[in-house]
């Protein structure tokens, strides 16, 4: 799968074609930094003064690189496809190598950042349990009721939630059995076949 660039994007990147390789390296570093921590417009000003070009050109160049990097990481394109994609942009050979290295070294990291942006539902985080025997209550004295009390922690993004739940031995065994079945299902030939075939 090749990346498609629209004319505007090509235009933004064209500024990078004639610069020194060291400057490109600097641009790559800045782009990566911005993907990780968010953009800092002050950097554009400084770089623009050094290179004596308008700040907007620098901004377009950095954003063009960021887009190139996020888009290729998003699609997880192969090494060959990446090379073929940037071939059409007119970069020099040493620049192509630089961009490829940038992509290959950092795509995992970029994907991790992208995956944080994805919507998510509350996730299992931890479970703690304890075994109690209820001996009496206001309504009923002299009882021996075994109870498994559990604290289920789920995480929704950064928010941690705690659920205090309880169950009796029969339901605990049932719960364990049903969830164990769920775990076995993933190893079934059917699921494995599907996993293999979705690429």
């Amino acid at each position, binding site marked *: 799968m090749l990346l498609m660039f629209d004319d505007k994007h090509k235009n933004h990147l064209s500024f990078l074609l004639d610069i020194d390789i060291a400057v490109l390296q600097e641009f790559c570093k800045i782009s990566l930094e911005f993907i990780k921590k968010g953009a800092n417009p002050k950097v554009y000003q400084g770089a623009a003064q050094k290179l004596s070009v308008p700040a907007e050109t620098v901004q377009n160049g950095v954003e063009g690189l960021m887009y190139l990097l996020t888009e290729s990481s998003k699609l997880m394109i192969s090494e060959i496809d990446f090379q073929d994609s940037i071939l059409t942009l007119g970069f020099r050979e040493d620049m192509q190598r630089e961009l490829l290295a940038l992509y290959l070294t950092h795509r995992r990291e970029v994907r991790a950042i992208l*995956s944080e942006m994805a919507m998510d539902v509350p996730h299992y985080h931890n479970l703690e349990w304890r075994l109690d025997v209820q001996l009496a209550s206001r309504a009923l004295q002299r009882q021996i009721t075994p109870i498994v009390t559990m604290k289920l922690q789920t995480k929704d993004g950064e928010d941690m939630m705690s659920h205090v739940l309880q169950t009796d031995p029969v*339901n605990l065994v049932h719960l364990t059995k049903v*969830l164990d079945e769920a775990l076995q299902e993933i190893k079934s030939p059917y699921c494995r076949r599907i996993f293999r075939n979705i690429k």
Partner: protein
Amino acid sequence: MELSQLVLDGLILAGDAAHVNDKGFSVLVTRAFDGLIDDRHKNLIAKDPSFRGEDQAVVKEVYAALVTLVAEAAKHDLDTSSISSLLEECKFNNERIETFNKIYTAKKQLVQILLSGVGTTPRHIVDVDWRLDYYIKNNHLEKVNEAVYLVSLKTEVSESPGLKEVQFSCTQEQLQDLVGKLKDACKCLEKISQS
């Protein structure tokens, strides 16, 4: 177990053949148990033809006293001999004591099960649903390709009708962690039940 004077007075009335005849007594005791066990039977006594023409105030007082006795006796898990001595003090004859004890022995456990549900407890897990998805992509990321479980625990909330759900998702590793911990708990229970 302590009963208030009001309840004791009601019980004395119940044991008094001048106020409650034998048939009426057995109906009252049965209804007292049924009324406690099933909410729908709570007011059956009001329409019962056995008490037509009787003094409704007496019927009411006796019924209330019997219901209290049943609930308190079950709460304290009294045996029939303690009940007998209590009823003797309320001037019950042997026949009535036996009638009461017979029904009490038969229904005590049911009443106790009901009583055990009274009070606040954490949400009680009674069932679980799961679903297995293969997460392919989202708007920010292609080729995510991982298995995701959606688990929904069905829980009963004390003293409120219906089931409430606790939902969460987990990866295969997380579910393994969860099931491992649940198996530990099961093993622990098994060990204790055998010792």
